[in-house]
């Protein structure tokens, strides 16, 4: 066995009392592409950050060429030949392509000034080498997301990197762009680089990886060459339990009621196709599709947080002018995609976060009622088993799963009739996920209409009664009953596939 280029040896990491990784063994070998799989929150990102000097292990160590090393900061890891393309980009939109690629590694003249001519030439050479067609002199605020991703990869490979770690690199790419990326990656493997490929998309993993390591709850559950695995084996290692345990049974009875939410010809952005959809009381409808297919934008437009042309009917009544406030007042509530960005009030207490949507709904419309707030917050804490000592505790001291429970509790405060949930289980541990699924199903059974956006196919397949697959801002397919499979969703979500597109174009007919 050859010495691995990079290895994690019994590596553990805790943040305060929370143990995120526990004794991880992981090897990256030359000319191989190892997939790192696991659910959100399993510890993949933490492992990558430990191997690239962003975090420091609480136990165990990192090895390069078989020798123990310490990376005090990312720069040292980069110098050791470990390159990483993070899920969050590190590109700077105010700088040009060439400035981005060679940031901190700018070619110098003899006097120590940046050699602008060589900077440009080097960038051109590198981009051509990778088969990327970009003008090195353009600033990144003029490039598409996919182009920025290419810059990110070029930047990672500007030095003699021997290991390249890619964290969800295709999340923002179209299928054509993904193919392009795979060609580039194949070339790198041929040159003897070691790759680490982190992805949720198992089809991609089987397409380009040679090895696989699955982690769950901070430990390695399974590891080996890809040939020994099939789809189900990977999923079983990731989830660690039967899907049946995770998801409550779906709705069985037909739903005779008129739709609670009906969208007709909604155009989110000029140039995008008009969207029609319906959600009836009692059903969970999932909006599936790739990141960037327009799901979040559609949800925000329905909720009234973004401008759009077209009609939205709520309980049979047309709502021409919508805003988050008016939607909430009518019983249309939304859970946003990013807790941190536009969900939580991070500096406020659990109680304040919980009460935010029901301010002024008490007997006295202008004055707060601390006693009522306290009582209701307690009832939510009990109902959703939120782990918290005191509702006066700042919300950012809670785990992601508990934060999400508070936000879901807040959504239900005004007894909504329609719920829009954008990635409701993101950054939530498996136990909390199961609770959230049960809650959503119970709500549906109580007559709430639920529209759920999710990138986790397991979740879409396991929970949704109907699935609308979005592609390029329009609805590409409509799946019901036994037709809801991961394959069908992926096929429809990927561009240009006739089979996926022909499934059903008009959900209103169903």
């Amino acid at each position: 066995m050859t010495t691995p280029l990079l290895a994690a040896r019994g590596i553990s990491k805790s943040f305060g009392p929370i143990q995120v990784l526990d004794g991880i063994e992981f090897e990256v070998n030359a000319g191989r592409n190892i997939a790192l799989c696991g659910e959100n929150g399993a510890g993949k990102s933490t492992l990558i950050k430990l191997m690239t000097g962003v975090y420091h292990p609480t136990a165990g160590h990192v090895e390069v060429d078989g020798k123990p090393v310490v990376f005090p900061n990312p720069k040292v890891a980069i110098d050791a030949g470990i390159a990483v393309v993070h899920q969050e980009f590190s590109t700077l939109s105010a700088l040009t392509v060439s400035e981005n690629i060679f940031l901190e590694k700018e070619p110098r003249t003899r006097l120590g000034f940046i050699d602008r001519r060589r900077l440009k030439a080097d960038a051109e050479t590198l981009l051509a080498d990778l088969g990327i067609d970009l003008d090195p002199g353009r600033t990144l605020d003029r490039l598409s997301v996919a182009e920025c991703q290419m810059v990110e990869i070029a930047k990672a490979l500007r030095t003699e990197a021997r290991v390249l770690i890619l964290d969800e690199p295709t999340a923002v790419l179209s299928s054509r762009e993904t193919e392009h990326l795979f060609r580039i990656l194949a070339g790198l493997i041929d040159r003897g680089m070691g790759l680490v490929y982190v992805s949720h998309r198992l089809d991609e993993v089987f397409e380009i990886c040679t090895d696989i390591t699955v982690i769950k709850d901070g430990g390695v559950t399974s590891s080996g060459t890809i040939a020994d695995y099939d789809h189900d084996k990977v999923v079983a290692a990731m989830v660690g339990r039967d899907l049946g345990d995770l998801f409550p049974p779906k709705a069985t009875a037909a739903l005779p009621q008129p739709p609670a939410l009906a969208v007709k010809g909604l155009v989110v952005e000029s140039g995008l196709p008009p969207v029609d959809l319906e959600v009836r009381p009692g059903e969970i409808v999932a909006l599936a599709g790739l990141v960037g297919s327009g799901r979040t934008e559609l949800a925000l437009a329905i909720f009234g947080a973004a401008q759009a042309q077209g009609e939205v009917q709520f309980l049979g009544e047309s709502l021409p002018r919508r805003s988050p406030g008016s939607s909430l007042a009518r019983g249309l509530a939304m859970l946003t995609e990013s807790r941190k960005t536009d969900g939580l009030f991070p500096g406020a207490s659990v109680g304040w976060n919980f009460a935010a949507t029901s301010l002024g709904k008490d007997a006295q419309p202008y004055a707060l009622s601390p006693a009522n707030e306290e009582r209701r917050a307690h009832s939510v804490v009990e109902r959703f088993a939120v782990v918290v000592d005191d509702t006066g505790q700042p919300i950012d001291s809670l785990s992601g799963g508990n934060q999400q429970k508070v936000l879901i509790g807040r959504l239900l405060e005004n007894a909504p009739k329609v719920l829009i949930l954008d990635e409701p289980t993101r950054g939530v541990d498996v136990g909390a996920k199961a609770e959230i699924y049960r809650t959503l199903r119970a709500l549906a059974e109580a007559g709430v209409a639920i529209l759920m956006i999710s990138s986790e196919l397991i979740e879409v397949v396991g929970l949704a009664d109907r699935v609308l697959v979005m592609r390029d801002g329009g609805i590409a397919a409509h799946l019901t009953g036994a037709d809801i499979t991961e394959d069908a969703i992926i096929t429809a979500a990927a561009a240009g596939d006739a089979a996926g597109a022909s499934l059903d174009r008009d959900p209103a007919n169903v």
Partner: protein
Amino acid sequence: MNGLALRLGSTATVRGRKSRELLLLTGFLVVIWTVTGILSPRFLTPQNLSDILVQAAPLGFVVIGQMLVIVMRGLDLSVASVMATAAVLSTSTFDNTGGVFVVGILLGAGVGAVNGYLVAYRKVTPFLATLATMIILQGIRFAYTGGAPGGSLPDAFRFLATGRIAGIPVSLMILAVVAFAAHWMLERSVLGRQFMLYGDNPAAARMTGLPVNRLVVLAFVISGVMAALGGLFLVGYVGIVDNWTGRGYELDSIAAAVIGGASLRGGKGSVLGALLAALILVSLFNIVVIVGLSIEFQMVIKGVLILLAAGVYLRSSRA
């Protein structure tokens, strides 16, 4: 958990953190008063203490508004300009009638509305919006007065700023009423909660259906009105109207708000803290004079205090 510890010192809750900060400020004030009292017998006399309070009143008005804008992730650089303009306008428009206050307050509200409009609807950063209105207002004021403000100071001004009823300074009574109203608004009313939530996370505030643009405008309007009040009380106290009345108050009020626990990152601040900080600042100015230090030490002390306070709060919020 021990209930008393929770209320007074525990940093485990948001409220506990805030109580601890207020306790710290009060403690600091008590310490400097005691030490100075020991050093100089002239300090802890009722006359001197009430002088300090009356002197602090104009800053007290201004800092309440400034603190509110800072809670909303803003900053109001126009307060000093509003103070002077309100004073100049009021004294030259009417004589000895209640009208003087109305004109000044309307001006403050108007300037605040413009600031709020620029910030909420034109997406101009508060710093630049209020910088611009500050300069424009300054130009209007100087052009209006021709460089030298005329008009006499109505007697009503002098009375409100320096008069006493039953031995209690009138200005303090009015400040107390305004401060109590502001405190109730911020701590106990739905509006105040909305201000705090917006300051904590504007995007989340929008998604939870709060009337975000109206909140921003309202905060700036309140700041303008408080600045106008501060200006009127200041000229009443000083006795002379000047085109530069209130100069330096924009930065002093920011300093007091920060010392009082407000963070430029928003979502944090209290009326009580802001007033305590204003009182601490003015006390220190008084103390410098009383213990016979050169008056310039005031500026050094102010600077050190700002850094100290900002550093302490940052540590406590990270702890």
